[in-house]
């Protein structure tokens, strides 16, 4: 996190706010609900309180305005700059302005007012932008589900660096963004997707570009708002150009970046017994789908559309050398890449043996 240069802060902790000018795109009730919820994000993590006033002066004045609106920081029409806010202080200090030329929503379509407002109020309280891509104070917009939103730890640390701990007897904690080069990094699931490789972790995924070897971290919800966090297994069926994602007893099908209609479905579709309630890892190869659950492997025949007889078997009996539980697996050039803890094992399907063992994070250019 970063504090605004000069460390401006409010001397009083009970602050007032007033919505001077509403947007025409949402009802006043929706705007007030989003704004109230956005302030709660910060009051939950600090000693600050926020009281709405409807007339007279207020510490934080909120307005939806267009283009050049007289504060030397003109807005730029749809997209681009969404909003801005001023650091704590008198007059314009603390005020937040939202670009009326944007489409403001209460849902996952851009742009969700609650998320943008919560970010701007961070500035109103003295925070600058954070370099943590998972932080609320990161400059770029990224949708996260407001109904399950919790302030990331980076932002909690920031606001408490200015105003001290929350008055709650139990100090709030928040999610921390996984760092690619953490030697203890493990993956939840991995799949290829039309040449790219997606590495899933908590509410994020890294996206590795095949040629450029560039790796970028994104929120799962930025690409697929309706998907849950914590994807547990994933595979690409290249013959159908579909990616399947698994969590618990449910699975989803993605066609590129679109979720197919009629999902989620239950994993019993594959013929698993009801005793199987989650999958550790999965990979597709030559019209067979391999599922890894604890120390066992199941094989599904995609042509017959049924689980193959004689399964489950011990993983090591099919893939000698793969002795530990599999977190994630994907296939590349007739090699299964098995990830277990902070290591991966390259299993050559022709030579039928492990040909390389290395640190998982090398796939993230670490």
């Amino acid at each position, binding site marked *: 996190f970063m504090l*605004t*240069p*000069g460390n401006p802060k409010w001397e009083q902790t009970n602050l007032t706010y007033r919505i001077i000018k509403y947007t025409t795109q949402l009802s006043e009730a929706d705007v007030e609900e989003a704004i109230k919820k956005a302030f709660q994000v910060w009051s939950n993590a600090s000693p600050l309180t926020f009281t709405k006033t409807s007339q007279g002066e207020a510490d934080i004045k909120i307005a939806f305005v267009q283009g050049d609106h007289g504060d030397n*920081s003109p*807005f730029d029409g749809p*997209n*681009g*700059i*969404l*909003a*801005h*806010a001023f650091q704590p202080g008198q007059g314009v200090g603390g005020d937040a302005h939202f670009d009326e030329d944007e489409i403001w929503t209460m849902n996952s379509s*851009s*742009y969700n007012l609650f998320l*943008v407002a919560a*970010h*701007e109020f961070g*500035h109103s309280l003295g925070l*600058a*932008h954070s*370099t943590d*891509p998972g932080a609320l104070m990161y*400059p*770029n*917009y990224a949708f996260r589900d407001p109904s399950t939103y919790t302030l990331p730890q980076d932002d909690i640390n920031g606001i408490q660096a200015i105003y001290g701990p929350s008055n709650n007897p139990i100090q709030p904690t928040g999610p921390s963004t996984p760092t690619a080069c953490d030697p203890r990094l493990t993956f939840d699931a991995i799949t290829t997707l039309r040449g790219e490789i997606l590495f899933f972790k908590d509410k994020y995924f890294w996206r590795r570009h095949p040629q*450029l070897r*560039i790796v*970028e971290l994104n929120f799962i919800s930025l690409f697929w708002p309706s998907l849950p966090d914590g994807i547990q297994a994933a595979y690409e069926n290249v013959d159908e150009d579909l990616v399947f994602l698994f969590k618990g007893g449910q699975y989803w099908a993605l066609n590129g970046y679109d979720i197919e209609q009629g999902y989620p479905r239950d994993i019993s579709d594959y013929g698993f017994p009801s005793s199987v309630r989650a999958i550790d890892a999965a990979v597709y190869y030559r019209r067979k789908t391999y599922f890894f659950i604890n120390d066992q492997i199941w094989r599904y025949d995609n042509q017959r559309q049924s689980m193959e007889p004689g399964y489950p078997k011990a993983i090591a009996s099919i893939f000698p050398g793969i002795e530990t539980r599999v977190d994630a697996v994907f296939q590349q050039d007739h090699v299964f890449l098995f990830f277990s803890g902070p290591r991966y094992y390259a299993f050559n399907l022709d030579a039928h043996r492990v040909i390389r063992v290395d640190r998982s994070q090398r796939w993230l250019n670490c």
Partner: protein
Amino acid sequence: FPVPGGSPEEADAQEMDTQVVQDYLEKFYQLPRRGLRSQRQNSPSVIVEKLKEMQRFFGLSETGKPDQQTLAVMRKPRCGVPDSGD
């Protein structure tokens, strides 16, 4: 500068990219606005330094060049508050 022998479309696209970079660095990284820049401030090295500062902030390779990944970040919707300075 336009690539010698580049097609007019390429020159236009390059001009567009230059515009995106200029605007972004002026808005969020304190690159003095055109017309207000002194000779020194107008030198390419100042722009390269500001571009590296932006790439560092976003964890990009600090090439000092407007590569595709950098331009992609610059085109994302964002907050209007600068990433550095007041």
